[in-house]
């Protein structure tokens, strides 16, 4: 009989078997943190389409008849090569995880600069668990946040990146999650803990990939804290195999004068959801959340974000653009919340989608919740086919119909890539965009 994945009874059973063996078990505050996560998940269960923010993404249906082997017990095969987004000649700081297990063999952690901590979470929990206290953000009690609660309970691997005050870390930190390295479908709960100290700067490259169709499930939570005057640039590429399920939640907190800029490039997974909860806690905090999504077949890709302006003079820009082909479905739910004290907020949000097939679909829901009276906020969403005039113009110059379509989609998405501030990462992104376009009918 097929078991349904991630049901409350299944998780309870697993908890009884596993809780004592999770890394860091026996540390009081961590045991409490996990127990609270389990309690919340038990109360809410897997989020389903009756919940407002899950209306367009039916996770229980996607997981029906699927069963997974927990990362801790899965067997893995060896892997020769792990693709990188960085140019070959780059100096590297790299952590690689194979279906949820840290792979020292593929990682590169030597020569860490002074003031930088970078380590797999299992090691931190073993050697210095106190370093995590206060950095892990527990999920709010909210049924819509049940996956994060589940992660609180079960996370057993991931990374800690901590950059001390005033340190400029020039080498990008690359974290690579590889799925499909096991013959079994592996479920893993991972945590990325990132803390950028006052006035420090860093670049994080988060890369999700698979061997083959990668039929696993990843539930990832990121806790990112950017202290006063600090900056973090974050590239996130999710190109896992087309049978995988990818669930990610990012908690982001920015203090005064802090800057965070991300580009999320999504072309993978049967079903993916990326939740972002960004809170601007200090004046002049500035956040840019960009995203590009390229989906085809029956892929489903969901981005659900909340940007909270809590104090005066903060700014946020969010631009998500994508192309959907075949029967692919995209979801963009973007909410900007401006609290009463957050005067002079500058918030802009834009979602633009090209529908390359009649059966492709986008559900776009930008929302503003404004409780202050002196703010500048704007949001917009467009969806449509490629411009017929532009297509004819290109074809009249000799480009084939396919070539003209590809050129227009490329231009539409490449704009975001060209805006990404780390030049060395752009070629790999453009290459992925072009590769995707070659598969467009």
């Amino acid at each position, binding site marked *: 009989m097929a078991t349904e994945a991630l049901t409350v009874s299944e998780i309870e059973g697993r908890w009884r078997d596993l809780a004592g063996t999770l890394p860091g078990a026996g540390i009081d505050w961590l045991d409490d943190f996990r127990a609270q996560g389990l309690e919340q998940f038990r109360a809410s269960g897997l989020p389903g389409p009756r919940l407002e923010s899950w209306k367009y993404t039916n996770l229980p249906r996607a997981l029906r008849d699927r069963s997974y082997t927990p990362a801790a017990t899965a067997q893995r095969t060896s892997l020769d090569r792990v693709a990188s987004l960085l140019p070959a000649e780059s100096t590297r700081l790299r952590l690689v995880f194979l279906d949820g297990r840290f792979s020292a063999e593929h990682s590169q952690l030597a020569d860490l600069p002074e003031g930088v901590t970078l380590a797999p979470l299992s090691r931190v929990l073993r050697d210095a668990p106190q370093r995590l206290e206060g950095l892990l953000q527990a999920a709010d009690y909210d049924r819509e946040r049940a996956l994060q609660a589940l992660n609180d309970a079960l996370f057993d691997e991931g990374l800690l990146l901590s950059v001390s005050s005033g340190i400029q870390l020039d080498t990008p930190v690359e974290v690579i999650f590889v799925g499909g390295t096991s013959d079994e479908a592996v479920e893993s709960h991972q945590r990325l803990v990132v803390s950028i100290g006052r006035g420090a700067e860093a670049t994080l490259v988060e890369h999700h990939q698979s061997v083959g169709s990668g039929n696993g499930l990843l539930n990832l939570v990121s806790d990112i804290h950017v202290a006063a005057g600090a900056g973090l640039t974050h590239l996130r590429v999710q190109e896992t195999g087309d049978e995988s399920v990818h669930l990610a939640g990012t908690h982001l907190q920015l203090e005064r004068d802090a800057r965070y800029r991300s580009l999320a490039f999504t072309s993978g997974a049967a079903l993916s959801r990326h939740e972002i909860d960004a809170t601007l806690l200090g004046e002049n905090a500035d956040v840019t959340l960009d995203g590009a999504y390229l989906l085809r077949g029956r892929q489903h890709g969901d981005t659900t974000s909340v940007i909270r302006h809590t104090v005066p003079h903060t700014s946020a820009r969010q631009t998500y653009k994508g192309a959907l082909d075949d029967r692919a479905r995209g979801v963009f739910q973007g909410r900007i919340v401006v609290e009463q004290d957050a005067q002079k907020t500058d918030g802009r949000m834009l979602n633009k989608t090209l529908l390359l097939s009649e059966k492709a679909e986008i559900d776009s829901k930008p929302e503003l919740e404004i409780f202050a009276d002196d703010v500048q906020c704007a949001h917009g969403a467009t969806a449509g086919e490629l411009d017929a005039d532009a297509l004819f113009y290109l*074809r*009249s*110059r*000799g*480009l084939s*119909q396919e*070539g003209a379509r590809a*050129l227009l989609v490329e*231009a539409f998405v490449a*704009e975001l890539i060209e805006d990404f501030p780390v030049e060395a990462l752009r070629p790999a992104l453009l290459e992925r965009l072009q590769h995707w376009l070659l598969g467009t009918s």
Partner: protein
Amino acid sequence: MLEIKNLHATVDGTEILKGIDLSIGAGEVHAIMGPNGSGKSTLSYVLSGRDGYEVTEGEVLLKGQNLLDLAPEERAAAGVFLAFQYPVEIPGVPNTTFLKEAVNAVRKSRGESALDAMQFLKVLRAKVKELGMSDEYLKRAVNAGFSGGEKKRNEVLQMAMLEPALAVLDETDSGLDIDALKAVADGVNALRGPERSMLVITHYQRLLDYIVPDRVHVLSQGRIIRSGGPELAKELEAKGYADIIEAAA
């Protein structure tokens, strides 16, 4: 070079072209003049193969090849070039990338090898210089934010790069001041040659002072009602379309 025989075409079920016969020899420049709504732009789109323009009767042969069976890109490969009345802005596509894709697509379908980046840039720079354009054009996105004059010059640059057998210029003078008009006309004249025919579509005689045609045809209500030498354009300018159309009726 170009033979149009009894060409009928409809747009949204309405017949716009009602039997056009036109023959343009190699190296000749013909002008089509006509009032608004006479079918001038429809003719240019029918020749270039735009969707929504349905040919119900007649044929169009370029060097003996029937164009009407061909997709727009196949017509481009066969040597048809339409200089648009309203060139389309394509944000995000650099002009150089666009020109290279176009030139190599056409070369490929003609069985020629693609130009590598160096060869291509060499040819492109030479043409840009000949047309008195600035290299700045090449870095910018196709027509995006271009002035009217810049857009039309960009059309001429594309024509120069693609070296068509038949160039159709649709209202190339519209929206241009006299200096821009002169520059565009100089560019077009430089491309006149024994192996290239041109069809210049215009409402006003002004353009034909700069691009002097071998023949002038007057289009009215989907038919050519009168043909003559360059002096016919002057007569139109003096008398207006109404007189000529009435006289022909």
